[in-house]
């Protein structure tokens, strides 16, 4: 049943397919744990720190591969459909975390405790070692020895956070191009319903600057993705790009201001409490450099995080 549920999720949501493929391929599958199962074993502070690389990398992934050049015709209708894949390369340090929380009600951690204390959360993040469990160390304010409780293991040992997005575009009128990233709403059983929608607009002043040595373009994109009640991820980006055509190769680069947030919700097993928190991505801008050869493109985005993307767009 569990396998069936995971299989449905992988099949149904190409947007997060890469991530869940990694999860399914990891040794953790044998432990019958998935992301939600693991989060349900810990409180909010642990979950925030544990999931932080995923939360931080997801937005930059969503905001990647926004363009494959800056040239948009002024009087020739164009259509495109294809797929974009992205992966944020995490810093090695993000496979582990340590977070200290003071003035915690110890009774909320273990019913046999009372009073307040300092909580030290330590261990692998979601992208850390699946064979190593984290620890929760309590230092009671009233004194006594450090008290150690078990945390949760990493989910998948990887420094790459992947994402995939289907995309379609239409443009060519006065330098305008509209782009859509979309996947129909699907019911994933225990995971709830999932949906993915993103849209954006680009405009190129090429028609006005006919003798300008490079093509230019400005644009924005807005995306929302839900995975049941577990994850809601939003991302916004505004960008400016230039490109130069060296037939058959097009070289392009750009700068973007962006923002992203993710809300994570789950039920904490110990208390039965519904936990929901929202975290904003620390990445606010990026530089992009890429190249397109016919319908294939590859690029690199460098901001607080480094993201690699590739796309295959077919059209006319």
């Amino acid at each position, binding site marked *: 049943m569990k396998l069936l549920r995971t299989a449905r999720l992988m099949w149904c949501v190409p947007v997060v397919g890469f991530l869940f493929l990694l999860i399914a391929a990891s040794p953790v599958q044998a432990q019958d744990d998935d992301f939600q199962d693991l989060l349900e074993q810990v409180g909010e502070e642990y979950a925030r720190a544990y999931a932080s690389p995923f939360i931080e990398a997801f937005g930059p992934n969503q905001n990647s591969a926004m363009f494959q050049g800056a040239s948009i015709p002024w009087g020739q209708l164009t259509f495109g459909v294809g797929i974009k894949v992205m992966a944020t390369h995490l810093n090695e340090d993000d496979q582990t975390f340590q977070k200290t929380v003071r003035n915690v009600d110890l009774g909320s951690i273990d019913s046999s405790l009372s009073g307040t204390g*300092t909580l030290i959360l*330590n261990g692998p*993040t979601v992208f850390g070692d699946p064979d190593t469990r984290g620890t929760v160390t309590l230092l009671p304010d009233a004194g006594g020895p450090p008290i150690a409780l078990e945390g949760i293991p990493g989910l998948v040992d990887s420094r790459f956070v992947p994402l995939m997005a289907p995309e379609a575009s239409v443009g060519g009128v006065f330098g305008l191009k509209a782009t859509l990233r979309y996947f129909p709403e699907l019911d994933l059983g225990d995971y709830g319903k999932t949906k993915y929608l993103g849209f954006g607009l680009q405009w190129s002043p090429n028609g006005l600057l006919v003798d300008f040595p490079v093509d230019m373009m400005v644009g924005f994109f807005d995306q929302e993705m839900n995975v049941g009640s577990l994850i809601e991820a939003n991302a916004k980006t505004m960008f400016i790009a230039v490109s130069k055509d060296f037939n058959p190769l097009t070289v392009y680069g750009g700068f973007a201001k962006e923002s992203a947030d993710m809300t994570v919700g789950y039920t904490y097993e110990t208390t039965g409490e519904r936990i929901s928190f929202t975290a904003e991505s620390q990445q606010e801008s990026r530089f992009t450099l890429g190249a397109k050869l016919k319908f294939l493109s590859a690029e690199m985005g460098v901001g607080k995080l480094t993201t690699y993307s590739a796309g295959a767009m077919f059209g006319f």
Partner: protein
Amino acid sequence: MKNNLKTMVALGLVLMLTGLLGACESDSVSPKDETPELTQENVAYQAAIVALAMVEVGPRVIDFTPAKNVYTYSFTGYEYVEGDVEIDFRTGGASGEPATPSNADYARLVTLGDTGLTVTYDGLAGSAMSLTADIQANLDQVNDTATIFAPSGGSMVSGVYTGTFDIDGVVVGVTGYPTAGTITFTAGGHTLAVTFNGTANVPVSVNGTTTWMLNLSDGELSEVMPPM
């Protein structure tokens, strides 16, 4: 031909710039808070826990029954300690010949595995410290005692905190509390010594001054007020 050259130059430029950008590794985005420092009281409790464990572990080098020179002992049903140790018996000291326990004058007890023994304190569900130890002892078959000598010792891990301990001159019997010797415990920049005296009440001292008293029968640690 000219177009091909331009394409090659452009591609080379892209690869070069990508290589430069590639040197820009992602910043770390997960929390990396510093570990709060332990107080002397925290460390006193840790030292007490090691002493309580020693009361249960130490006698195993003299309280033996199997007629084998090396055997694994499982701590089950004990108040504080759980797990397995290996005990190696010899006659003629550490470099002597393997011997059965009743003929040995030397024993070495080593905890097994990376995490060693699990020590539970105060009955808190799920809370446990792991203790590794390597203990060497001279056996006195006449008096049924063993003297644990340096460089015996080990380490204790409690969540993010690790402490080390040295055991010197601790005399254990088949029953009762250790009659002499010291465990020196170091963690978080604090060093405390637990000195055994054959009774249930033993001093825990800092720089030779008794700062705490540990009751080995119930595990209670009480602070000793300095004289006014």
